[in-house]
């Protein structure tokens, strides 16, 4: 078995409601290996962002454990960077200062001034915002703000990237650019990433593994290993078959009325998918 960077086991989470407790997600498992890109796919409101906060050490799970680099995750970790669903930029800082935000915090790895400068410049360049570095968040478009938030993560060169719909506000062309950029950076620094999206195509294009969440409370409906080299734009047929399979799984789940008593659907539901798309068991 390969080394595991981020290891989540038996995660359950929910929120207090007026009358008791609303369970959002149950018994979730995930193992992230170095250099791996995992996409978590699921309909709106299924609990993806909540799950990401748990994986980032920002929110307590009701049950289960998360460990990073072999140690239990107690809280936010400097080797781990999160891009939230909302850019969360600080309005009183320029784009450049927003990208630099946090780099010099006491608990972050120490950086020499030149290294810091270089990282900020590279990150801003990578997301194509050199022309706007002096601008303030109020002057940025939604897509620019999102790319700024991404740059803020990249500048930290984390070991694990957690991205919550990082390309949601981007047009098709920029989105494709950013996807390629992300893949390059991940390959260059051997970063591992968990990417949340509700866009199946994005999941298929970017990830080594797709996890589908669904139902209430949510469970992992299926996992798919995508063993295709990048770039994948040409592999329409293989990806198309997989796409249909994911959609089918999702539709089947939404038809089952009460999920609670049901056993988790086995990943082997996808065993018949042809080509190099293997069902994955972890």
């Amino acid at each position, binding site marked *: 078995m390969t080394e595991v960077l981020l290891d989540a086991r038996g995660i359950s989470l929910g929120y207090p409601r007026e009358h008791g407790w609303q369970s959002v997600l149950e018994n979730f498992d995930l193992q992230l290996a170095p250099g791996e890109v995992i996409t978590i796919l699921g309909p709106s409101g299924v609990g993806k962002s909540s799950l990401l906060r748990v994986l*980032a050490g*920002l929110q307590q799970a009701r049950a289960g454990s998360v460990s990073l680099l072999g140690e239990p995750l107690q*809280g*936010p*970790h*400097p080797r781990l*960077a*999160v891009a*939230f669903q*909302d850019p*969360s930029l*600080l*309005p*009183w800082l320029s784009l450049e200062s927003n990208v630099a*935000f*946090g780099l010099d*915090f*006491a*608990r*972050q790895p120490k950086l020499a001034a030149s290294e810091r400068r270089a990282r900020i410049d590279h990150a801003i360049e990578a997301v194509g915002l050199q022309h706007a570095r002096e601008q*303030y968040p*109020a002057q940025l478009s939604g897509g620019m703000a999102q790319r700024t938030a991404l740059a803020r993560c990249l500048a930290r060169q984390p070991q694990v990237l957690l991205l919550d719909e990082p390309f949601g506000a981007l047009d098709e062309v920029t989105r494709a650019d950013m996807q390629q950029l992300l893949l390059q950076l991940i390959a260059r620094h051997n970063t591992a990433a968990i990417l949340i999206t509700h866009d199946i195509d994005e999941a298929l294009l970017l990830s080594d593994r797709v996890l589908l969440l669904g139902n209430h409370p949510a469970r992992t409906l299926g996992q798919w290993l995508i063993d295709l080299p990048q770039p994948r734009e040409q592999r329409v047929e293989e990806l198309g078959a997989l796409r249909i399979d994911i959609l089918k799984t999702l539709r089947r789940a939404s038809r089952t009325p009460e999920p609670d008593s049901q056993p988790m659907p086995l990943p082997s539901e996808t065993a018949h998918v042809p080509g190099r798309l293997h069902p994955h068991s972890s």
Partner: protein
Amino acid sequence: MGRHAIHGALGVAGLLGLLLLWWLGVHVFGEADGLSARFSPQATLGSLIELLGQGEVYEHIWVSLKRILIGLLLALLIGVPLGLLVGSYRHLEAATTPAFQFLRMISPLSWMPVVVMLMGVGDQPIYFLLAFAALWPILLNTAAGVRQLDPRWLQLSRSLSATRWETLCKVIIPGVLGHVLTGVRLAIGILWIVLVPCEMLGVSAGLGYFILDTRDRLAYSELMAMVLLIGVLGFMLDALARGLHRRWVHA
């Protein structure tokens, strides 16, 4: 831009209208060459120009502005940390709000005799009264700012493993600064109003003192000139505070 020009022109027209009303008021209600003539715009402007030509008035202006500044600084020094605390803890807020509202509604001037008795005459009681007057808007606005902090900013700083100190300095304080500046602007308005009567007691410099001085010298057109000057200076102070606020919020 065109809109700004129109609004600016309208504002100037309003000020000219005020001047006209002043002139009319003196002419209609006063006797032609009685006492009231000395309150007319012409006489006042003449005196003002004369006053501004001499050095003395600048000293009084300087003394008054210094008092405002010291009162404001004291209020900031106490009000901002207290506001941060009150805004951060719901129980503290519940415990202090009625007391603050109570104190806030007592005109600072009503403390004047007490303060003079305790501190004697001089600058100290003035600083105290000014700081006391300016404290409430700053404190209450700071506390409101803390309560309205965007939780996403706090989540961001947490995700970056920020220490408490870093969160305070890099997120909370800049995050409430807009509110603090709103408080400062309100405070300056109050300070300017409270200053003049404060200076009418036991000091020998400042705009309030100078008003009484002109009265005692029966220099009524000078008195009116001072009234006008106080208005102009207050207007400028407010514009300054507004400008600061706008600069920060637009950033």
